[in-house]
């Protein structure tokens, strides 16, 4: 019975989130990822064969792959999470949350469903958009092994970190526009700050550098421990705030 009740809440939340142009986002990301994958596997190979791989590969292709691909993905994901979590702030400010909490649900159930759905939708979109073009551009048979598991885990933890920041800000502001602007500003500012620290060996542990590395498959899981702990702490604070203190 509880599962049925929660599943209807999940479907209700999905109907809220899927108002956003999810399909378009998947297509744009997939095209972008296809483009960068094409650059990586074909052009890189061509240049490497002809030139010995050195200069053009290092400056143009690797640079493109790193900054263009990882940064754009980071900014894109930050933007999506800021948008989706600001819709939670909108639900609070517009009275929709008050209405939802007038139905026979515990606050904890509403929080868990809201936050899980908001977190999982962009994550699944990203995985789909990222993995969809892979078979077309990756010239070798894909092996599902430890490397993939590590990549999956690092991406998951990186997403959790971005989501936790956006969620905390949206619950702090409780209004959508300040929440969105603050989330985007903080996440973008952090990316520029860490870019300036990239020669420091500790930078691998600092988000969003570890996030960018995780997308590129360069990160170790332990690089993500500080940011993951921070994410878990922020989500726990949000949970306590939502279930015990939030007044509507």
């Amino acid at each position, binding site marked *: *019975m509880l599962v*049925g*009740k929660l599943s*209807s*809440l999940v*479907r*209700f939340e999905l*109907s*809220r989130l899927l*108002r956003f142009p999810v399909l378009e986002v998947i297509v744009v990301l997939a095209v972008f990822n296809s483009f960068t994958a094409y650059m990586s596997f074909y052009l890189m190979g061509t240049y490497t064969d002809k030139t010995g791989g050195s200069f053009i590969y290092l400056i143009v292709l690797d640079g493109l792959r790193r900054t263009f691909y990882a940064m754009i993905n980071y900014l894109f994901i930050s933007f999506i999470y800021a948008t989706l979590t600001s819709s939670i702030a909108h639900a609070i400010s*517009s*009275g*929709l949350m*008050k*209405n939802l*909490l*007038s*139905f*026979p*649900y*515990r*606050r904890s*159930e509403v929080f868990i469903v809201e936050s899980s759905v908001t977190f999982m939708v962009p994550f699944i979109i990203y995985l789909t958009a990222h993995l969809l073009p892979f078979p077309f551009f990756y010239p070798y048979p894909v092996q599902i092994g430890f490397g993939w598991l590590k990549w999956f885990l690092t991406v998951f933890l990186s997403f959790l970190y971005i989501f936790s920041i956006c969620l905390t800000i949206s619950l702090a502001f409780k209004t959508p526009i300040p929440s969105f602007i603050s989330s985007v500003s903080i996440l973008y500012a952090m990316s520029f700050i860490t870019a300036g620290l990239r020669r420091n060996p500790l930078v691998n542990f600092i988000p969003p550098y570890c996030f960018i590395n995780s997308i590129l498959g360069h990160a170790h899981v332990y690089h993500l421990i500080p940011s993951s702990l921070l994410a878990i702490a922020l989500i726990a604070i949000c949970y306590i705030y939502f279930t015990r*203190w939030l*007044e*509507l």
Partner: protein
Amino acid sequence: MYLLNIRDLYKSFGRIRALNGINLQVGRGVTGLIGPNGAGKTTTIKIALGLLKADKGFIEFFGLNPWTMGHRIKKKVGVLHEGVPLPEYLVVEDYLKYVAFFRELKEPKEAVREVLKLVGAERFKHRRIGELSAGMRQRVGLAQALLGFPELVILDEPLAYLDPGGRSELLDLIESLHRDRGMSFLILSHILAELERVCDRAAIIFRGKVIAEGSVRELAKKYQVTEYALDVFNPDLWFKYLKDLEVVEDIRLDTSKGRLYVKISDIRAFEREVHKIALKYDLYLISLRPRYGLLEQIYRKAVGDVSGEAQ
């Protein structure tokens, strides 16, 4: 047993004290919760629903603490919030189906169909909520509150946005649901004249306190109606003969309407005097009636007594 039992409840928002030791008991039946804007009506209901936490005091809703056991209370309560916050992106029928699932109704489709018919929302059930007029949204909000026919329905300003026909239909619906299904209603409203048609009990909230509470009959007795309107021919002559009567405390002539407003101390004595004057001077009286509706009169007297101002 009271459905809602509140004793000495306090709630402040920063420096603003919204509830100032409120005491309120709501039983079965149709109860009106009335008071000016900012009196604390909505705050009281939000605390009862576990949406706000009281600073101090005692509150029990269906015998449970709303802040900790709100989810159990809400199985028995349907709510229409003020301003009708609804998800604009959903189609009316789909939204109500979600609500039916939230309430764990056994036959959600049938329940939705029935409630749509009851509130007169069938004709726009396939439209998105965001496209609806304020009156239509109000009907969807009512459908949400009535879905599953809960034991108690809380309606915060249910008559707002409805046209006169819609208001009358809603009041008829409340009467019939109370009579036929035994449902109870707690109605927060400013539209007192229409509210008194359905309410058998009322509580008046003013500056965060309940200043009067009881059945409408008891309240009418306690706060005697003292202001009357007389529609007459020859209002100048009536004014001349009435103004010196001992029973008349105050009198005002509205020449444009040919109407006299009198404040009296004893209605029976006044009626006798009016009758005498009409016979003696051969004057014609069209009507003698309370100046305001019964609830409004009670409200004005109660608030006037507390604030020390003539309302």
